């Protein structure tokens, strides 16, 4: 009797009943494969791995319950309607019934995904937990060219842009951005919202090319769900900080493609709005809020007011009140948020034309800084005396204000990751900046700490020491910077001194030898004669000893593995292999580092 023999009339049991192959599932649902795919994507249904693959090893299995879940969704009926509708249109066109075709095309069957979002993410935290992919995708599509005739509708790209800006505005406003990283692939951000770490990637602000090797149907299905999800998430988030959700933006700023800034200003004004203002006041308040956010501190409200009046001709006095209220209101932040909020406090940034504006407009306010840019709609212009840092990314800076520092954009990112104001020397215009390190790597766990990470750690320690004695100091940042500068300088000085001493000593030694009458060639010969022998002997001896020692160690390890069960032994070996690989990687890094250093020193010579 075959192993899986089932008597006729007996129901299937176990894995055969629980799981269904994809083909069978498609047949069961009576839809096409493309629609099945779309349904799976929207419903979040994924294949499972049955313990026993009854139908064969190379098939995809879905859980029967998942398929039933799809089968009972009204969406499946909707898709059928869409199919029918498409047929009708086609038929009308074929019969040259232009009128009917137009009428049909005007009202295609539509569907909403809100129930699906709630079904997949019953609580808000669930949604936040799964937001990584959503954000990355939305940001990716926001960077695609919004051109008619491409495979992606312009409307959707604009929607993606809007959603991503709304999200960024929220993060920036609540100061919940934690880490940033410029990689070759784009810029990574990590934010913490309601205790969830959310990481997303935005492509560099350059034209993306639509390639042919991707299936846009699949991606657009995902995007469809993600757009809905992010819309609702944004709604909830905005609601949580008392801002009206579909934000009404200043059309002027929007036209200037400074949407993020417009949004920020909107939020800054909008937060007071729910408390009791007329409908018409909403937009105004929003704008005030934007202002608030941009400068983010009450003591700078003057500036903000000026901006406000400048931007909003139809301003009303109540708005200002809200503004002030708002700035003093939220004090419920946790420590980290506070730390983030005050990182760039009292610093004023100015962005040159060539730096990635969107990213910096997002980051700097998120860490409490004030920022402006070169171009229209900017809150203040380049000649502003209070600007402390100007971010430039060009080989040389022709006109220089002495009152400010000219740094490369990487400085901002590194400061944010280190949570201290780093010394700017390395980042000045025209220099190759120090290596940009990933904040997502646990260097200790990795076993290799890059040089610059150590430097940053030292600076951080110095900053902490400086901070502790004077909490709440007004010009804390300044003193911090100064202290750090001192620290680094002193370090460098100490190193230099040491080097000098060494050189001096060497010089003295050589002098002595010279006096003794040993010519240099002699000396080197002698050294050469002497060294190999002794070295050899020592080497071989130590080598043997070491060998034995290693052997003994290895033996003791081997002996204890002899009694392990096969399963455990396999696991043990796998762990060992993993460790070995890690070690190799670190070794490789060290080797490369050494090579680079030696080649650099050779070049210097």
């Amino acid at each position: 009797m075959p192993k899986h023999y089932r008597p006729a009339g007996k129901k299937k049991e176990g894995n055969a009943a629980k799981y269904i192959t994809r083909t069978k599932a498609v047949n069961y649902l009576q839809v096409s494969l493309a629609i099945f795919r779309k349904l799976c994507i929207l419903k979040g249904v994924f294949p499972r791995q049955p313990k026993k693959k009854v139908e064969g090893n190379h098939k995809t299995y879905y859980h029967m319950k998942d398929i039933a879940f799809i089968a009972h969704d009204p969406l499946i009926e909707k898709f059928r309607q869409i199919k029918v509708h498409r047929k009708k249109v086609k038929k009308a066109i074929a019969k040259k019934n232009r009128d009917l075709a137009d009428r049909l095309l005007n009202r295609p069957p539509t569907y909403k995904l809100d129930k699906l979002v709630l079904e997949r993410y019953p609580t808000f935290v669930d949604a936040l937990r799964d937001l990584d992919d959503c954000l990355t995708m939305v940001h990716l599509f926001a960077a695609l060219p919004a051109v008619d005739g491409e495979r992606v509708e312009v409307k959707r790209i604009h929607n993606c842009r809007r959603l991503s800006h709304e999200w960024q505005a929220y993060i920036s406003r609540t100061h919940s951005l934690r880490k940033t990283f410029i990689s070759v692939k784009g810029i990574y951000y990590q934010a913490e919202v309601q205790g969830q770490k959310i990481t997303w990637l935005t492509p560099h602000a350059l034209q993306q090319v639509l390639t042919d090797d991707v299936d846009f149907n699949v991606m657009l299905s995902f995007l469809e769900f993600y757009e809905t999800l992010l819309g609702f998430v944004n709604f909830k988030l905005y609601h949580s900080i008392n801002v009206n959700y579909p934000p009404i933006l200043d059309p002027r700023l929007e036209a200037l493609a400074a949407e993020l800034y417009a949004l920020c200003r909107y939020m800054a004004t909008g937060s007071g709005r729910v408390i009791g203002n007329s409908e018409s006041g909403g937009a105004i308040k929003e704008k005030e809020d934007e202002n608030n956010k941009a400068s983010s501190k009450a003591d700078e409200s003057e500036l903000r007011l000026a901006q406000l009046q400048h931007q909003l001709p139809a301003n009303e006095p109540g708005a200002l009140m809200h503004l002030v209220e708002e700035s003093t209101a939220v004090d419920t932040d946790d420590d980290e948020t506070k730390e983030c909020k005050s990182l760039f406090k009292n610093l004023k940034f100015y962005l040159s034309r060539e730096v990635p504006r969107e990213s910096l407009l997002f980051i700097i306010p998120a860490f409490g800084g004030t920022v402006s840019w070169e171009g229209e709609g900017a809150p203040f212009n380049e000649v502003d005396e209070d600007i402390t840092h100007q971010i430039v990314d060009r080989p040389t800076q022709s006109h220089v204000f002495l009152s400010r520092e000219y740094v490369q954009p990487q400085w901002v990112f590194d400061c944010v990751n280190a949570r201290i104001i780093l010394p700017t020397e390395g980042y000045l215009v025209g220099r190759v900046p120090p290596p940009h390190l990933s904040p997502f790597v646990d260097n200790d766990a990795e076993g290799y700490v890059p040089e610059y990470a150590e430097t940053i750690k030292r600076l951080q320690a110095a900053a902490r020491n400086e901070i502790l004695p004077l909490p709440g100091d007004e010009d804390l940042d300044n003193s911090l910077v100064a202290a750090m500068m001192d620290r680094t300088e002193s370090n460098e000085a100490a190193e230099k001194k040491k080097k000098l001493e060494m050189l001096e000593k060497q010089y003295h030694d050589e002098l002595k030898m010279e006096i003794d009458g040993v010519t240099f060639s002699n000396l080197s010969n002698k050294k050469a004669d002497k060294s190999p022998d002794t070295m050899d002997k020592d080497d071989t001896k130590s080598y043997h000893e070491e060998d034995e020692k290693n052997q003994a160690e290895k033996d003791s390890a081997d002996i204890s593995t002899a009694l392990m069960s096969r399963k455990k032994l396999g696991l043990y070996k796998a762990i060992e292999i993993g460790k070995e690989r890690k070690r190799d990687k670190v070794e490789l890094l060290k080797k490369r580092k050494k090579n680079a250093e030696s080649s650099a020193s050779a070049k210097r010579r």
Partner: protein
Amino acid sequence: MGHSDGEHELEGDGLSAEDSSWSDGGWSEDDDEESLSFEGSGSGSGSGSDSDEAAAAEESDSSEDEVAPRNTVGDVPLEWYKDEEHIGYDIDGRKIKKRDREGRIEVYLKNADDAKNWRKIYDEYNDEEVQITKEEAKIISRLLKGKTPHANVDPYPDYVDWFEYEDKGHPLSSAPEPKRRFVPSKWEQKKVVKLVRAIRNGWIKLDKPKEESNLYLLWGDETDTADNKRQGLSYIPAPKPNLPGHEESYNPSVEYIPTQEEIDSYQLMYEEDRPKFIPKRFESLRSVPAYEKALREGFDRCLDLYLCPRTRKKRINIDPESLKPKLPSKKDLRPYPKTCYLEFKGHTSPVTSISVETTGQWLASGSRDGTIRVWEVETGRCLKVWNVGGDVRHIAWNPSPDRPILAAIVGHDLLLINAEVGCEEVQMRAKELLKICEMAPQDDTDGKKPAVRWMKHEKFDGITLIHHKAVSNVDWHFKGDYFTTVVPSGDTRAVLLHQLTKKHSHHPFRKLPGLPVAATFHPSQKMFFVATKKFVRVYDLQKAQLVKKLESGLREISSISIHPGGDNVIVGSKDGKLCWFDTDLSTRPYKTLKIHSKDITNVTFHRKYPLFASSSEDCTAYVCHGMVYSDLNQNPLIVPLEILRGHSSSDGRGVLDCKFHPKQPWLFTAGADSVIRLYCD
């Protein structure tokens, strides 16, 4: 009033070109005004007006076909004058100079400034710009549309029937007009009614539906936990994408950038192993290009999300040390052999076998160089050498202390010789035993060649047991009278039992499944163990029946040893595994130790201490603690203690034999490097 001054001149010109249709409408009105102003303002001329005048002159020129071309070169290809400075000659034969070429920017600016610029056409022949009049422009546009050039031409004049004939007023068909031509259509009416009804009932909506934003507070009240449960199966969240490391930075530190050779070497790797991302360094942020694989990677992620089967996997993050079994400390298990104490040198070829005398005073060894040596254990002195002239494959010392007899397999056959150790009396007895009366009682009558013939060995005063085929193994019964030999290829006569005192041999098994590898006696009972390649069979000698069959699960058994208690057996195999059988417990191995990387050559138990050892071709010998408890409920305790190294490999062979000292926790190992080593604690 400069402007009006200029207009005065223009008026003068305008008069001369009165017939030009160009200066109609506003122009002519202007003219009138200007003429007035001219009268009012009196004389005056401005430099700006000159150009206007010139332009007007040109216009009037071009509009009239009668004006002869200034150029007189005639109908010649104009490229003849391409490189010349002139375009031709005027009527007086003077060269007409080329004008300066206008730059593109100028053309563009002109285009932008002058709304009528589109009317200007460059006349190549006369090298001048001609402005087309309104009429001309109209004609051109009509031509372009495919109409007749002049608007006053009627393309469809009324038909004039020039010919008159009689009955010209009749229609083609003389049928009367049908009624339906005069009555409104019923079907049309029905259709209209249908449409009207559909519109009224809202089935047909003519305006486009409004798009309203459908966002609302989806997760409103989260206090009700019952609602917050996800329906259906347990949700397995997709694993998050890997976070970028230092090497993905746009400006990684130098050590993360692979050298060119390394990048080249990636090409040699398998596709799957090849690193997908090669770090690259950019000097500044502005030089970072768009990542061309961004879309592709997003797509791959999508595929992963909806195509990859998801399972929950427990990722164990454990210390590998915790996987190792808890073993008692080695200190508590002392004594056991640890370090090499003595080396017995003398053989010139690999020492294949060794055996220790029961008292532990003497050690016999056999080697490929055709010698058997007896050594004093304490000193390492070689006491005696027999040159037997043939490989000594195996050697075994009679376990009885008063019978100093060595059994050695030399070449094909077994040799029993007097070891010539011990006191006179003992030696005498041994000699007695080894005497054999020359006769042929073994003459089997069945015509078959006898399995064994006992022959006297003249040279060493011993006995040779001539087997019908090559012998591989010999083992003594603990009392020292019986011994067994194994002839692997001997079929039914593969395992033989011999009695020394009676000089008698027989083969106890009528049939033996499998190829026997080794046979040995139980250390205290009348039991007999035969190891074939995969199994160990235990026979009761008295009842002559099979008691047990131990399944080793090994590929090929190479050696066997019985615990002094008799209930535990260890088996070494050619795949480097050592199996411990607890025969009371099961017929399957209680524990399998995979300790050697190459064949195990021999395994052995210590007679007194709870130790066992294995030697292998990988030049190591393992010493393990193997405690057997008298309490049946307690499993034997096995602890690997020490790896003994020291032998060097020769011909790919390592340690060929190992034996414990009968009384001390010492281990002798015989190596392929022709040295015997003694390891002590």
